[in-house]
């Protein structure tokens, strides 16, 4: 049975020295350089996150940019190990996070389909069975024969999306994936995504599209500055989010101070 269980999970990012200049310039914009005595070293990306998701649930994840949605998904996927707390995930995880990285630039479209499918947990036989339909859905035609180095960004998305959505996941972790591609593709993509979400037994879906959220998810979690501030029926949580929108976006200083 698919299941995700997180208990008191903390996750920090250590901001390297080489980024200080950039950080300084960002901070200088915010509220003047002089007030900062020490450089920020640690960004608290997630703080005491406890959440339990059972098979059959489809959960939305909302919050501002930098609230910790993607980070939380990556903890659930087992990509980020938490600094404190406990993570238990049962079931085959299929993460669909971004469709613009993770390509072998010198390899052809076909080779990239095979590679990505392998990495997402498909067996070689399954891949050969599905590869025609993946290619067809990607609608890339002859472009599949050339190295993906020559692709446009929209073509990357098509390729990655077509491949990634061909898996049969138990646990599906989605991170705002309708970002690129032309109108026609987005229409097809939406259909395929619906289909994928139907097939998965557990879905967590991070998004900014509040209008589509109620259609997919009966339960939604609201994150703010790395903490869960609400977890309940989608309609209620979305209302809380839209009404309680803070005047200013959280700053890096907030994150490092750990408020």
């Amino acid at each position: 049975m698919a299941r995700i269980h997180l208990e008191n999970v903390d996750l920090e990012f250590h901001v390297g020295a080489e980024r200080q200049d950039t950080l300084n310039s960002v901070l200088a914009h915010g509220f003047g350089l002089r007030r900062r005595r020490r450089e920020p070293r640690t960004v608290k990306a997630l703080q005491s996150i406890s959440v339990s998701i059972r098979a059959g649930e489809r959960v939305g994840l909302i919050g501002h940019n930098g609230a910790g949605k993607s980070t939380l998904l990556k903890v659930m996927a087992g990509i980020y190990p938490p600094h404190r707390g406990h993570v238990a995930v049962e079931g085959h995880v299929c993460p669909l996070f971004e469709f613009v990285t993770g390509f072998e630039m010198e390899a052809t479209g076909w080779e990239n389909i095979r590679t990505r499918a392998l990495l997402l947990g498909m067996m070689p036989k399954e891949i050969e069975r599905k590869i025609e339909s993946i290619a067809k859905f990607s609608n890339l035609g002859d472009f599949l024969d050339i190295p993906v180095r020559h692709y446009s960004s929209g073509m990357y998305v098509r390729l990655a999306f077509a491949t990634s959505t061909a898996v049969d996941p138990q646990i599906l972790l989605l991170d705002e994936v309708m970002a690129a591609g032309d109108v026609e593709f987005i229409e097809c993509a939406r259909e395929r995504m619906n289909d994928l979400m139907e097939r998965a037994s557990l879905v967590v879906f991070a998004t900014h599209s509040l209008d589509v959220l109620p259609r997919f998810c009966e339960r939604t979690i609201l994150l703010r500055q790395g903490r869960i501030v609400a977890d309940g029926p989608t309609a209620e949580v979305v209302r809380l989010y839209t009404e309680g929108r803070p005047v200013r976006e959280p700053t890096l200083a907030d994150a490092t101070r750990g408020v």
Partner: protein
Amino acid sequence: MSEQLRRTAGDVVHSVRLWHIWTRLGLLDLRMRFRRSAVGPGWVFLNLSVLVVAIGFIYANLLGQDAHYFIPYLTAGMILWSYLTNSIVEGGNAFVNCEGYIKQISLPIYIYILRSFVSVGLTAGITVFAFVIVGLFYRLPVSGGTLLALPGLLVVMTASLLLITIFAHLNTRFRDIAHMATVLLQVLFYATPVIFPAEALLRRRPDLSFVITLNPMFHLIEVVRHPLLTGAPPPIQSYIAAGLILLVLGVCAAGVIAVFQRRIVFAL
């Protein structure tokens, strides 16, 4: 802590089991590297052959060496030397090159080390043909003793895997490591009996024997090269040294895995 370590150990085992993934990725590496070249993987072979011919001609005369002995010695040495140094330099990028995968796919990261192990090994494998040609040309004696190169090869391959593990971790955290290693290896190359036979130095300057006996690369090369050329087992000191080297590398590899564990993703 111990739970983390247990998970890490589980990751390592899981990675090995995913051989159908990392073998394919390693093969793909090889195909991609030469995609746009006419000669393809032949370049690895040509590169070595040109070096062997050039160095062989000059040094055989310079050092007064018999080409029948020196050219095969040089070829075997170059192959093993490049294999080990590639493990360090290219292995250092095993994680860095796979950043796109590591950050979005939940597979144990050690498959990327094994991928590098495969691609570095295959590249070295191509150059073995050069040795076969050289061996046939100079009619190298082949006997049962030649097979003693096989345990030596196993030692070298293990060393390659451990070196990749160590440098993949270190270079991800400290990106200067691979560059630094390149520089140091260049120096070490001239001190290692590859382009000159060990005996040539020992005969002239016995007091400098430590340059050779304390050189780990020499022993790793010798356990394969010596039986290949002579059909006799290498000196027992080389086996002992090779064993010690593997032990040290093994401890270091286990060490970096235990220290970095799954946190390597944060360093990418």
